[in-house]
């Protein structure tokens, strides 16, 4: 349909240029609509060029979204989600705030929106935060995503379920929004600096 080899298509999925979900067995699942959208936007020849270009990662994120910081918040508790949403609404009007209610919802939104920050609860059903973090940390195209966990789970329980990566910022409930704001502030500044660099590159 796209005139591409399977390897090229896999590269496009892995670099995030075609939204898709990877199964536990490593198979890529993509919707017809996603393929059609990319095909219509770029055409098969341009797609082939994209597949042959270097892998995406952080640079691709910065290039695709030079101005906007996108934050994906995965929380099944409506009250906590409302609190975080209110904070973003009031304090970060320029940030793209995306709410998801469980890990599976989040996986699909990750593929579509490429957030720079992922804030997640741990105890969710059916797809919990541990599985989500495992998926995100295991894929090269998400290495640049900053990870924040908010949970009321005890340390023993977290350890029992496999623990958290040292790269994850852990915020225990009750959630201290001031700490979360400090973290987001830092990323807003990084994003602004990236946008500035992109602008300078364009001028040069």
């Amino acid at each position: 349909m796209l005139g591409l080899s399977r390897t090229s298509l896999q590269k496009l999925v892995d670099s995030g240029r075609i939204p898709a979900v990877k199964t536990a067995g490593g198979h890529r699942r993509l919707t017809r609509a996603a393929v059609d959208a990319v095909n219509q936007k770029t055409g098969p020849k341009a797609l082939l060029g994209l597949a042959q270009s270097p892998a995406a990662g952080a640079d691709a994120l910065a290039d695709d979204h030079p101005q906007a910081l996108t934050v994906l918040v995965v929380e099944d508790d409506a009250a906590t989600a409302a609190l975080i949403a209110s904070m973003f609404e009031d304090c970060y009007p320029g940030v793209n705030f995306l709410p998801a209610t469980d890990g599976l919802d989040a996986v699909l939104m990750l593929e579509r929106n490429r957030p720079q920050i992922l804030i997640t609860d741990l105890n969710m059903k059916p797809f919990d935060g541990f599985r989500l973090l495992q998926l995100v940390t295991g894929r090269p195209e998400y290495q640049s995503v900053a990870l924040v966990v908010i949970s009321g789970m005890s340390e023993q329980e977290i350890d029992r379920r496999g623990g958290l990566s040292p790269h994850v910022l852990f915020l225990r409930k009750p959630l201290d929004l001031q700490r979360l704001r400090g973290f987001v502030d830092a990323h807003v500044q990084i994003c602004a600096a990236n946008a500035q660099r992109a602008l300078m590159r364009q001028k040069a």
Partner: protein
Amino acid sequence: MSTEIDFLKFEQSSGSLKWLPVVAAAFLRQLPQWRVDFAAALAAQNPGHQIDLLHKIKGSCYAVAACNTIEVITQAEAAHALGGPPAPARLLHHLECVEAELHAIVQRPGEVNGTGPAGAVQEPPQRLVRAK
């Protein structure tokens, strides 16, 4: 005067009381389902499910700074860890008090956030609605 919702605690942890009415409205939307689920877990004598629900409710209580209820849930969790019952009557009583206070906050948000009388909170912030 609120006895269940700790305004000072909410303000300290979130940074602003003005968000409390919206968070309270979200809490209240979940409450009927929790009651149904908790009653079902009690009827089924399923302590694991009861504890899962308590954990969920506690998370929401943190969001609205319902400190007394958090204390009751913590005691119930500790009792469960020792093999005891979760004392549902006490918890349900506290949840009723929390519900009444949160309803008052949602109906008169201006009294909480210091902006004066205002209409009831009915809708979550715009961006709580799924963007894509």
